[in-house]
């Protein structure tokens, strides 16, 4: 198939309030949306969704797959672009795995203790999700 490159790729933009993490033409992206993963490829129907409090996102550009931990936010999918507004995000390669593990343990402990006083179970669960995402993203890199 002699397809033009533009119809095989889409522009992925991943931005957090503090910086732009990804701005690249990709062939595929897996997005951790609130109600489950969305696999986006070029030509996807327009879609808006919130993201999970913590999830692993992967995308493929030039045959290389990269992994990020994304901590909540929103995604807009258009036929030729994907725009992720993350509350916070980091590349798997940037995450210190020991620290992430320690965070996960602390979060697991905290969530097991719920319902405790003055702890919102939803917040504890979100933190657990974020910690898990960080560990998963860090592991996927190697």
């Amino acid at each position: 198939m002699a397809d033009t490159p533009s119809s095989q790729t889409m522009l992925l933009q991943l931005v957090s309030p503090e910086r732009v993490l990804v701005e690249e033409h990709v062939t595929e992206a897996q997005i951790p949306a609130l109600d489950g993963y969305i696999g986006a490829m070029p030509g996807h129907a327009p879609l808006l969704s919130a993201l999970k409090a913590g999830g692993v996102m992967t995308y493929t550009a030039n045959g290389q797959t990269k992994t990020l931990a994304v901590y909540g936010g929103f995604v807009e999918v258009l036929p030729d672009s994907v725009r992720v507004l993350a509350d916070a995000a980091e590349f798997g390669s940037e995450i210190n795995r020991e620290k992430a593990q320690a965070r996960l343990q602390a979060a697991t402990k905290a969530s097991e203790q719920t319902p405790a006083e003055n702890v919102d179970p939803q917040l504890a669960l979100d933190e657990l999700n974020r910690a898990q995402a960080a560990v998963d993203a860090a592991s996927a890199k190697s």
Partner: protein
Amino acid sequence: MPSLIDFRRRIRSVKNTQQITKAMKMVSAAKLRRAQERVIAARPYAKLMREMLANLVAAAASDDRAADSPWLVKREVKRVDLIFISSDTGLAGAFNSNLLKAAQRFHEEHAGAEMTLTLVGRKGRDFYRKRQAKILSEHINVLNRPGYQDAAEIAKEVIRRYKDGETDAVYLINNDFKSVMTALLSVTQLLPLELPKQDAAQAQTDYIYEQSPLDMLERLMPRFVEVAVLRGMLETVAAYQAARMTAMDTASSNAKDVIDSLTLHMNRVRQAAITKEIIEVVSGAAAAE
């Protein structure tokens, strides 16, 4: 007439001051560059968010629960929350006094409303402490390196108040960084949400909504306020460093002027002393003849 040694001392003292102001200018220049980079890095997010908001507001308006949503309903403005961002330190010319003047104007414009303040930066805090003002919270020393977490912390209580109907409007006053020479005063209405017309016109794509638009709006609006606060902080930091750099540059060149004029005076005194001595020698010699 001050003596030669007095002039020397004064000149040395002014030179020391000049060295300090020069160093401060360099520090501000370096900090300004970093602050500018952060302002620029934060822009894409704000832009994408505005576009997404425009879409969501248009879509959420047709929801039958829209009339109950605090984010869409506009209340009569009887109580106003003001987030005021100033700098922690001075030495930046009229930077903070301009901000405070803008705040005073804002108070006059909203004289009928009950005002509650959220203060970021020491200068604004010190100003309002001396006055009868209702202060919700104070945030000092967050401007050294403002991050999203700080902004979220500052905005949290204000968002809750608006959502629970304890306040009817939220405004933000800060300085925007325009160029090194000019800081632009900015008074922004954050809530109720006012979308620029061209943003609303762009909202035409027919999206699949994974969650209902109203639910997403509920999630997005707090973010919107937090990001606006973060942007305000970043802009203010950049504008502050620019103002400080300009002020220190002026101070350095003033010091140079002072040194020049002192040196001139010193040389005159020196010359007068020499002339006097020559006259004494000459007249002494004439008397001896």
